[in-house]
């Protein structure tokens, strides 16, 4: 199995781990968003709470959660490792500035990753932990945990909404580069399809984080 280890620890292999986990997480975002849209049903949270309730207890969901958490973990750890070895590759930096012509998003993937990780932890503590682990939420009209009330309460704070929106912008920029970059890492590059991939990546990076950011803004401004 040394070939397998060699592959995944090579520079290209480590990029492959970033690409595979990255695309997985991008897919997860869409699933998460579809669930969140229930917040906008306008029924006082009945359907959102039902959806949140259905996310508890089933082994399928549990497996999904383990996969998603490992995805995050591998993506973050591998990302940090790459940043460290990439920094080591240039121990002395340029005195005259590095003005090389490049795309901006790609240059700040690391810093964006830090913003997203901080948001991710905050988000887990605020919602995932309360709903799934502490399980200390009040009950709604249907006698199920009222996660909706918690969400609405959080989205009344302007600071919280601001953090949420800024984090979504960071995710958008991160995805815009990450999506097309993953295909480049897989070697899937083609005159016909690369422009389509780039377009889909950019559209996704605008629409999905945009929709995520819309929800807290909606609650804040319609309270």
């Amino acid at each position, binding site marked *: 199995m040394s070939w397998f280890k060699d592959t995944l620890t090579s520079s290209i292999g480590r990029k492959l781990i970033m690409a595979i986990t990255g695309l997985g997480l991008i897919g997860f975002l869409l699933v998460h968003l579809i669930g969140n849209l229930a917040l906008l049903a306008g029924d006082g949270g009945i359907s959102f709470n039902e959806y949140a309730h259905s996310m508890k207890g089933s082994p399928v969901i549990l497996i999904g959660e383990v996969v998603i958490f490992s995805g995050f973990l591998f993506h973050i750890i591998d990302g940090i490792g790459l940043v460290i070895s990439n920094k080591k590759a240039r121990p002395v930096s340029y*005195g005259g500035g590095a003005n090389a012509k490049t795309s901006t998003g790609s*240059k700040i*993937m690391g810093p964006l990753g830090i913003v997203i990780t901080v948001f991710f932890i905050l988000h887990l503590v605020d919602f995932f932990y309360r709903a799934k682990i502490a399980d200390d939420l009040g009950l709604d009209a249907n006698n199920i945990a009222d996660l909706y009330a918690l969400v609405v309460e959080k989205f009344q704070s302007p600071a919280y909404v601001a953090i949420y929106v800024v984090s979504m912008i960071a995710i958008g920029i991160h995805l815009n580069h990450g999506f097309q970059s993953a295909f480049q890492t897989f070697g899937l*590059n083609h005159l016909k399809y690369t422009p389509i991939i780039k377009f889909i990546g950019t559209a996704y990076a605008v629409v999905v984080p945009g929709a995520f950011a819309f929800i807290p803004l909606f609650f804040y401004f319609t309270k």
Partner: protein
Amino acid sequence: MNFTLKIWRQKGAKDSGQFVTYPIKDISSDSSFLEMIDILNNQLVEKGEEPIAFDHDCREGICGMCSMYINGHPHGPENLITTCQLHMRSFKDGDSITIEPWRSSAFPVIKDLVVDRSAFDRIIQAGGYVSVNTGNAQDANNIPIPKTDADKAFDAATCIGCGACVAACKNASAMLFTSAKVSQLALLPQGQVEAKARVENMVAQMDKEGFGACTNTGACSAECPKGISIENIARMNREFIKAKLSSENV
């Protein structure tokens, strides 16, 4: 034209080095960048100072020796040329110009602006060749090759191994260079026999030399004097994944 030059001076590999400022006067706008440094060096020698060490050879843009990082760009501000093809008319009178060596742990500085790029040679030695049995040369048209493939292989082969890609990359990655050298052979039938071992060995050597990994930023290609496309990096990734999954090298 008059300039203020801020040049990296470093006595040797062990020295830490620093920038030294040299004013220079009455340079013709038609003089090349290297000629300007020649003039400065003559003045330094007359003053009894140590001239600035820099690499150069062909001075016509084909050998890839003239590695200089000028005002934040490998080979200076113009596109698709090497330092030796850069002329002072590309600058404004009175400009201050910063000149540094390539910065990469895999390219240690030997002296001043001269770096040791033999890491590239070792990558080539790891697989950048085809083995051909001796005997009579066969007819050139024996092996039909589609024109588009030949063109792409040739585009990749225009890489002069100057190292500007490494210098430009924020990760000091050598993937553009290595991928060009993998591609020029992967695209041709003659390269197929050793294709899998080639990409595996060249990537392994590239990693061993301490170059960074690619972030798909594209600085390498933007700064490459030969305009090598990062399409080659995708091809190398493809070749690498294919080789790792199917070669018998366990």
